């Protein structure tokens, strides 16, 4: 029997708000970045998420949760959303949303997958799984402690990786399965990629598809990381 899973901090929680879209961008073929001015915003902790709720004229609603990419110091809330083939919310955000639109949002939410700005952290993301980890990276840079967050970002190619430019540098590693980089030949992420980055880290944030999270979680455990130090956020369809 392991110890109980405990959050380390009291994470903030915000209620429903009206957000005004200030910027829309499409950094990769399958992603959209929206930057929102949230009235009465409750500052988030890096790693937390927002719910976006869309309402049709007949009252039908669809809600999905999206991680925040911006740092708490950013006056806007930045969401980076992968456009899913049948995603009624993600395709709306990718194809329909314009600057000036108003969206109903709720957040921040979540106190487990949230970084306190103190613990030395290894953050490992697959594809758009890097989004909440980018918030951590940006926050660490704001704190002038970039050493606190080491990011390992995995994707097929750089073009599949949002924020790939920010993910380079410092102690970070970009691991591409189909593309060579100056520091690493093409190949899937392995525990050999993770091993040099484990020492001195107290928290391990893993975000990606269920398959990615499963594989990385297993690698970390095999490398001797305590399971209760590993915080996982899975997304997307499986099995």
């Amino acid at each position: 029997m392991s110890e109980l899973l405990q959050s380390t901090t009291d994470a903030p929680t915000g209620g429903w708000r009206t957000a005004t879209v200030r910027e829309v961008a499409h950094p990769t073929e399958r992603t959209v970045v929206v930057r929102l001015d949230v009235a009465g915003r409750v500052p988030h902790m890096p790693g937390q998420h927002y719910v976006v709720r869309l309402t049709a004229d007949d009252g039908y609603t669809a809600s999905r949760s999206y991680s925040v990419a911006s740092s708490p110091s950013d006056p806007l809330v930045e969401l980076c959303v992968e456009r899913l083939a049948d995603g009624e919310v993600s395709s709306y955000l990718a194809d329909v949303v314009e600057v000036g639109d108003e969206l109903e949002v709720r957040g921040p939410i979540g106190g487990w997958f949230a970084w306190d700005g103190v613990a030395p952290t290894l953050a490992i993301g697959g594809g758009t799984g890097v989004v909440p980890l980018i918030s951590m990276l940006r926050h660490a840079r704001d704190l002038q402690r970039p050493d606190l967050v080491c990011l390992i970002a995995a994707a097929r190619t750089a073009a599949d990786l949002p924020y790939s430019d920010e993910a380079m540098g410092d102690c970070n590693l970009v691991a591409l399965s189909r593309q060579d980089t100056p520091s690493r030949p093409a190949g899937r992420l392995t525990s050999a990629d993770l091993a040099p980055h484990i020492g001195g880290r107290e928290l391990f944030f893993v975000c990606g598809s269920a398959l990615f999270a499963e594989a990385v979680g297993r690698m970390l455990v095999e490398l001797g990381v305590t399971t209760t130090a590993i915080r996982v956020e899975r997304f997307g369809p499986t099995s």
Partner: protein
Amino acid sequence: MATRGFLGRKRSGDPRLPPGQYDAGDDWPVLTAEVTPNLRPEQWSMTVDGLVETPTTWSWDEAHALPQSEFHGDIHCVTTWSKLGVTFGGVSVDDLLAVAGPQPEATHVLATSTTGYTTNLPLADVTGGKAWVVWTFGGQPLSPGHGGPVRLLVPHLYFWKSAKWVTRLTLLDHDQRGFWEVNGYHDRGDPWLEQRYTGD
């Protein structure tokens, strides 16, 4: 307020879908917040303790020797997917409680998993044929990602209440919030009332 230009999916009109939920069809997302444990059935046991007359622990074989019970129906995740017409098999929590014997002052239950995950429930939400400890899905062994070998099943509440890898039910005379409940999610989680987050 209506969202400009949002039409949404074709309305299914399926009366089994609570408000704000969609039918995930054959998909069954895995959204666990911790590492999936590599738990073998012979390592697992189920304990009912706290405010009971006879704290009791069942091994895998002992649990399987109890009267078997199935659930046929629908499950609803707070992230808005639902699965309709699913079947789980295991034992009714009523049968575990009948052996352990709840004390009169017991009002709540804290479910604990092998990973340290916890979730809280009013006792009334796990009695009267509303909750199970299950090890099969669709007649097949429950897979580790979905909580196998054994998970709690409380299908009338959002699915985070159905703790994966459940190993203990502790009866209490008060409500003690669990993992998601202290992390911004609703204390009870009734999908028909859309009790998703704290304050709903």
